[in-house]
């Protein structure tokens, strides 16, 4: 069976949770208080992730979706379990659509979208055939490189002289209202609630144990990273431009200009966005495939790889005609969707309570 170490889980989780926020930004609705909204979302998101960890601890040896039929019975638990691979497929399609919107409008304007996505999906399909172990090793190698690139970019941004810390103040001048509007529910669902897909790989972690601590560490690191990046973007652009920017983080990299010599570093931003999107899509598709394998009692998951990757490709290609509509759905529809809220927040809490009560009875 494919196994990964705790260190590989940490690397995968950090990259996964930073995900597409590296380009689209996070909590921009809170304006200059976005970094504060991110930190609050991180704390609450950690609590949500601990609910998922508790569910798997209370049901040892089972993957996350197998807990539903076990605790809720086969008639109720099985349809709830089947909702998960459908949700994972949809979210994977959304990330592919992110690539569809970003790459042709930034670094490859003359390349047809279907060609970019086809190559992206073929590589993901190949990675799915190779297994989780390979992705664990890849994440372990890439994370320090991404960290190094990010540190260099921060140094270059500081050297460009574009940062104005006055843009961060006054803090909370418009009150807590807009901060809470961003935290609930989008702030918690994005990155943290979506870690539900990571729950499908926890049974692959060897040696067992300390998954909870690894996930807490990765969540806090990812949240701190996003908060710091948001604060930097606000300090460079000011509140109004940050709120209205389509790709605020991408714009941040474009702002780098050291002595008119080091400029035009946009491609590095797109590069690490592409890798983060690659890993996030991989995890979603892996989680969907593993869920389908468990729910159909299949011996091997390989027969599901091709159909699942084709579905993700079609979803991503056809999802959004432009990035504005795509982002509007994320801001106005997704956070309030009963599917997202139930599967990521409410039903796991009920599952945890039921698992705990049943274990107590035994």
């Amino acid at each position, binding site marked *: 069976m494919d196994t990964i170490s705790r260190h590989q889980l940490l690397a995968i989780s950090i990259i996964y949770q930073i995900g597409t926020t590296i380009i689209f930004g996070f909590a921009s609705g809170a304006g200059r208080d976005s970094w504060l909204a991110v930190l609050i979302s991180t704390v609450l998101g950690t609590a949500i992730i601990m609910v998922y960890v508790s569910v798997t601890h209370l049901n040892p040896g089972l993957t996350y979706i197998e807990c539903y*039929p076990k605790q809720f019975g*086969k*008639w109720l638990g*099985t*349809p*709830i*379990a*089947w*909702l998960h691979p*459908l*949700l994972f497929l*949809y979210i994977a*399609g959304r990330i592919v659509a992110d690539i569809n919107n970003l790459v042709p409008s930034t670094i490859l304007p003359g390349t047809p979208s279907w060609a970019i996505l086809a190559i992206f999906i073929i590589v993901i399909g190949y990675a799915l055939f190779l297994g989780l172990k390979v992705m664990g090793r890849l994440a372990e190698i890439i994370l320090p490189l991404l960290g190094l690139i990010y540190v260099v970019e921060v140094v270059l941004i500081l050297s460009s002289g574009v940062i104005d810390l006055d843009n961060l103040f006054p803090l909370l001048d418009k009150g807590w209202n807009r901060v809470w509007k961003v935290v609930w529910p989008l702030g918690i669902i994005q990155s943290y609630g979506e870690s539900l897909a990571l729950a499908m790989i926890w049974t692959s972690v060897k040696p067992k144990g300390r998954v909870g601590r690894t996930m807490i560490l990765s969540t806090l690191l990812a949240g701190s990273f996003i908060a710091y990046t948001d604060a930097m973007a606000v300090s460079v652009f000011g509140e109004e431009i940050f709120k209205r920017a389509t790709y605020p983080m991408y714009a941040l990299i474009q702002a780098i200009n050291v002595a008119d010599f080091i400029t035009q570093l946009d491609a590095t931003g797109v590069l690490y966005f592409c890798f983060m999107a690659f890993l996030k899509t991989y995890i979603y598709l892996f989680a969907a495939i593993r869920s389908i394998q468990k*729910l*159909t*009692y*299949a*011996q091997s998951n390989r027969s599901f790889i091709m159909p699942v990757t084709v579905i993700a490709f079609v*979803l991503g290609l*056809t*999802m*959004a*005609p432009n990035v504005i*509509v*795509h982002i*509007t*759905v994320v801001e*106005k*529809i997704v956070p*309030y*969707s*009963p*599917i997202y809220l139930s599967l990521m927040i409410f039903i796991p809490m009920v599952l945890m309570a039921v698992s705990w009560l049943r274990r107590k009875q035994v």
Partner: protein
Amino acid sequence: MASFIAFWKSEMMLKFPWVQPVVFVVVAIVLSFFTWFRKPRQERSKDSDSEE
């Protein structure tokens, strides 16, 4: 009605946000029949071993 098939498209999600949850629940129930009525592989192989 035919446009509801493409429920994942952003325009559909903005105009009819209720379609996606409904489609998901219906598909999940349909797919559940695979789980309910397909015996686990182990049980099937046990059945065939005992028949031999």
